[in-house]
């Protein structure tokens, strides 16, 4: 009896807050009565619906919490065991996706977009997930990579494949350059300074009109070629379609771009997975756990942080270079703070430090809004709700356990309660 009373009280409080929040949004309607006056009409019915639904939903949620049973151990361990097949299955799907019959070009295009964010997420995961440095300005390196390629190609006529390593090197040097002064900061302070650097890079690009073209951006950035074969729609000799005797089709170019970004992303993943089992990667994770202990063990904290920053930045630069060649056009608008925030959200949502988590989170963060296009104005509402629900159900991200890098007897996953994830 007492529990029912408590539940009703709880739900009533939630409904009250819903009334406060929804009141102005749903309870009032602003209409334009005539040319000069706006009129305000009350719509109590709508408000009552919303508040009533909230009340019932909260009541339902409480009941579910009271009566849910813990997942049986057998089921939980089966789920955990099947987890190891998720990554290979996703990989096979990713490789085969553009070749599947009946897959629309738009989906391959979406695949390219998701894969770009997977790569960015993997790059940032080195900095945030492994080394525990909260970087809110990751987009700066993405921009450096994109503009490196844009400027090198339009000014010196270099192609994508020559510029790709250069863009990575330039982004990495910027990582070191920016890292030197800021890496003595920790946690929130580091986050603020990196946020500022992201903005500085964007503002410099916007205002240095003579070099970067300012807000107009750089156009006519060349598309990548396959061993000299272009993907021109004109066909004929020297093009991919002409060489293989095919009809030129935009799908060929999209699929080609898809495989480039897939290869780049897999490179990022491979290097990260290898580094995790190396002294450097272990030092990153140790740094995330306890910086002072690292110093007492003779680890050069500054250099170790710098390598994380530089390697993360390098992959950001590769992704930026790809971004420039995909669209053939770049402008400062593509490198706003929201990009950094999206990539960071992917890393956190996936579970900082988890490579598979990044993939799942990128699919959710990029895939859901794209697939919900048809829902129009409700798209972002549903998206926001989905994120809130995910963070309530899995507060430490999709994959919050940590797998040890080395073992004597048997590797056992380290539970979320012990694994420090992300910036500590």
């Amino acid at each position, binding site marked *: 009896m007492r529990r029912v009373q408590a539940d009703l009280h709880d739900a009533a409080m939630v409904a009250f807050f819903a009334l406060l929040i929804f009141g102005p949004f749903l309870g009032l309607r602003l209409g334009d009565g005539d040319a000069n006056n706006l009129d305000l009409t009350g719509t109590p019915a709508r408000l009552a619906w919303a508040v009533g639904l909230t009340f019932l939903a909260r009541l339902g949620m409480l009941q579910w919490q009271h009566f849910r049973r813990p997942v049986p151990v057998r089921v939980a361990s089966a789920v955990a065991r099947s987890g190891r097949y998720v990554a290979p299955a996703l990989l096979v799907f990713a490789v085969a996706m553009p070749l599947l019959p009946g897959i629309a070009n738009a989906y391959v295009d979406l695949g390219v977009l998701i894969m770009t964010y997977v790569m960015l997420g993997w790059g940032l995961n080195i900095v945030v997930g492994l080394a525990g440095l909260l970087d809110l300005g990751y987009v700066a390196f993405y921009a450096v990579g994109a503009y490196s390629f844009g400027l090198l190609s339009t000014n010196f006529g270099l192609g994508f494949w020559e510029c790709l390593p250069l863009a990575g090197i330039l982004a990495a040097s910027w990582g070191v350059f920016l890292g030197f002064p800021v890496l003595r900061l920790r946690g929130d302070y580091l986050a603020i300074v990196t946020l500022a650097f992201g903005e500085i890079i964007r503002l410099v690009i916007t205002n240095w009109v003579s070099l970067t073209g300012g807000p107009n951006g750089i156009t006519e950035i060349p598309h990548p070629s396959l061993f000299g074969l272009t993907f021109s729609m004109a066909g004929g000799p020297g093009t991919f379609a002409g060489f293989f005797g095919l009809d030129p089709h935009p799908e060929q170019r999209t699929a080609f771009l898809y495989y480039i970004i897939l290869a780049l992303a897999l490179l990022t993943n491979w*290097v990260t997975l*290898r*580094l995790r089992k*190396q*002294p*450097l990667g*272990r*030092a990153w*994770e*140790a740094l995330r*756990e*306890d910086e*002072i*202990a*690292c*110093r*007492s*063990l*003779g*680890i*050069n*904290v500054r250099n170790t942080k710098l*390598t994380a920053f530089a390697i993360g930045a390098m992959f950001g630069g590769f992704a930026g270079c790809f971004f420039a060649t995909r669209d053939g056009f770049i402008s400062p608008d593509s490198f706003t703070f929201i990009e950094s925030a999206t990539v960071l959200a992917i890393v956190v949502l996936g579970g900082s430090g988890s490579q598979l988590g990044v993939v799942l989170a990128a699919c959710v963060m990029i895939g859901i809004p794209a697939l919900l296009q048809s829902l129009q104005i409700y798209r972002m509402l549903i998206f926001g709700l989905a994120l809130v629900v995910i963070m309530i159900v899995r507060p430490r991200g999709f994959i919050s356990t*940590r797998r*040890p*890098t*080395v*073992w*004597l*007897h*048997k*590797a*056992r996953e*380290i*539970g979320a309660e*012990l*694994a*420090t994830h992300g910036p500590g």
Partner: protein
Amino acid sequence: MTILSVNDLTMRFGGLTAVNNVSFIAERGHITAIIGPNGAGKTTLFNCITGFYKPSTGSVTVAHGDKAIRLDRLPGHAIAKKGRVARTFQNIRLFAGMTVLENLLVAQHNRLQAATGFGVLGILGLGGYRAAERAAMERARHWLTLTDLYERADDPAGALPYGAQRRLEIARAMCTDPVLLCLDEPAAGLNPRESASLNDLLLKIRDEGTSLLLIEHDMGVVMKISDHIIVLDHGKKIADGTPAEIRADAHVIAAYLGEGDEDDPDAPVAEGAA
């Protein structure tokens, strides 16, 4: 043979002098203990020796091989690398989310990193890296066995019981291959049985050729295993000698029991402090 010499070391924080003109010597192959009442400046002195504070004046020199290295001039991370001085912390600082074994491998970072050829050979799995890693695993196994943690090697460090965490921190420090191991209250929070096995472990470490410097409140530990004791009070050194000498020292008794206690100068310190 001297392993560590501290000369005229002073540490000031603004107007507060935490350590005032302290000099002492620690012998190679000895266990040297620093004791003193709370607030005597023991941990500050310790932090100066291990590079966490830069002393206001004075010098700290460690001698190994045929070199004398000024620790107060080294950057923090080089104390362990070049100075070969390792330390533990009063409030344990393990990598809680990493396994016991990983903790011990992180401690061997510098040796392993050197074998990876700037990471490139390591990533490709080439060169001497495999041999270096095997040697690192062997060293980790050795210390796991000595600290009785072998069975728990794959457990996260944060899941170990308190006493085991203390032992792991010592094992981790020893994996850096130090000539001098500095322990900040290693027996704090241990029960008598764990405390006794800690004594054995410390003696074993000493017999393997590493000198020890420890801060300790547990007089049972200090008096039993120390070869040499230094007593601090209010930032100054008030006594320096063997356990027997310290036990009989009037200054020390006064510091621990209060000044007015002159009528019973033979009261054993051990009881007063423990």
